[in-house]
């Protein structure tokens, strides 16, 4: 998308009628994300149980970690038996798996995907690259710490993490959610300005609204 497409302009429709378009106002929501207070305790623990048993992963292979997703989807490891499945669109998923290193260009798309996802949503970060940069700690194009840009619920270490450790990681995430500690989304809403400032520091051509779900 070039920045020209985002400018306010007057467009002629197919029938010759003229109308104003302001893409930043018309196509996106400008509202800030809100924190969600838990409902009463019993109901919330039931909800948490339900959330934990239906982890729907966004099928976005952001880095090399995506290569171990295939074995997870297929009969050898078969994550589907744990209630984990992959969805093609952010609207249907609630787990974002960051597969390793993130270049700045991908980070921009990841932020958009994350903000389009329905709450409650969780971020799983794979590999040492998301923790401290890993192999690419001195690279000019990959971030060093994911938790500065997105709230990370759980890290799975390794380069790359084996399918067994991914399964163990998802089990740990389920445990967190059941205990009501999967609070990444609320953390993001609470520290929204800080996250946005960090994101804007490295994404120089910020041509999207601050919150675009």
């Amino acid at each position, binding site marked *: 998308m070039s920045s020209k497409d985002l400018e306010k302009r007057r467009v002629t429709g197919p029938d010759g009628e003229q109308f104003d378009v302001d893409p930043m106002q018309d196509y996106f929501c400008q509202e800030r994300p809100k924190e969600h207070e838990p409902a009463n305790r019993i109901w919330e623990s039931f909800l948490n149980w339900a959330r934990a048993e239906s982890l729907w992963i966004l099928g976005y292979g952001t880095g090399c970690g995506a290569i171990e997703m295939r074995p997870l989807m297929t009969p050898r490891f078969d994550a589907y038996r744990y209630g984990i499945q992959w969805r093609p669109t952010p609207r249907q998923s609630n787990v974002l798996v960051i597969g390793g290193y993130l270049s700045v260009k991908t980070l921009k798309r990841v932020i958009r995907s994350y903000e389009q996802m329905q709450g409650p949503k969780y971020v799983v970060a794979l590999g040492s690259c998301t923790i401290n*940069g890993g192999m690419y700690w001195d690279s000019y194009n990959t971030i060093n710490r994911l938790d*500065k840009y997105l709230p990370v619920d759980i890290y799975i270490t390794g380069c790359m993490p084996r399918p067994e450790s991914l399964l163990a990681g998802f089990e740990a995430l389920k445990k967190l959610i059941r205990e009501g500690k999967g609070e990444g989304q609320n953390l993001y809403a609470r520290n929204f300005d800080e996250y946005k400032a960090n994101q804007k520091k490295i994404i*120089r051509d910020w041509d999207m609204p601050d919150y675009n779900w």
Partner: protein
Amino acid sequence: MKALIERLEKKFRVTDPVMQRADETFFTVDKADAVALITHLREREGFTHLSFLTAVDWLEDGKFQLTYLLNNNAMKADVGVRVFLDRERPVMESVHHLWKQAATYQRELKEMFGIDFPGSPRIDEPFILEGWHDIPPYRRDFDTKKYSEETYFPRPGRTTHDPADYMKQKLYPEE
């Protein structure tokens, strides 16, 4: 291969040939002759496949080296054509009319080294980077470690064990 170099030396300003292997030769050609030589190699000598086009930064000499690696599949031979450009004003003629993929290589060189190829399609569009504000990153005077430390947030507590020290202790303790 030798005969080929001799034939080329008669027509173009070819210097410094190095026979790296029996089937691979590198030589330098004058910048003005470069595209003519490459066209000649492609049309008359059967070097029809452009393996890659890349640049090397010789910061000390103030020069960029372009390397065109051409491949002749009938003769089973490669030639690497070196072209030296001035580092201050790196401009080179484009070869996108000979090979379609050359335009992509030239876009990458424009972005990563700042070497301009006027007339090449979509040469000014960003190829890999997005919103890049610094000097082209593959240049030798760009310090990637410094840039990374300033821009991204290095995690405190990370101690960088210099592998050289570690290897010295573990592998070569007597030196």
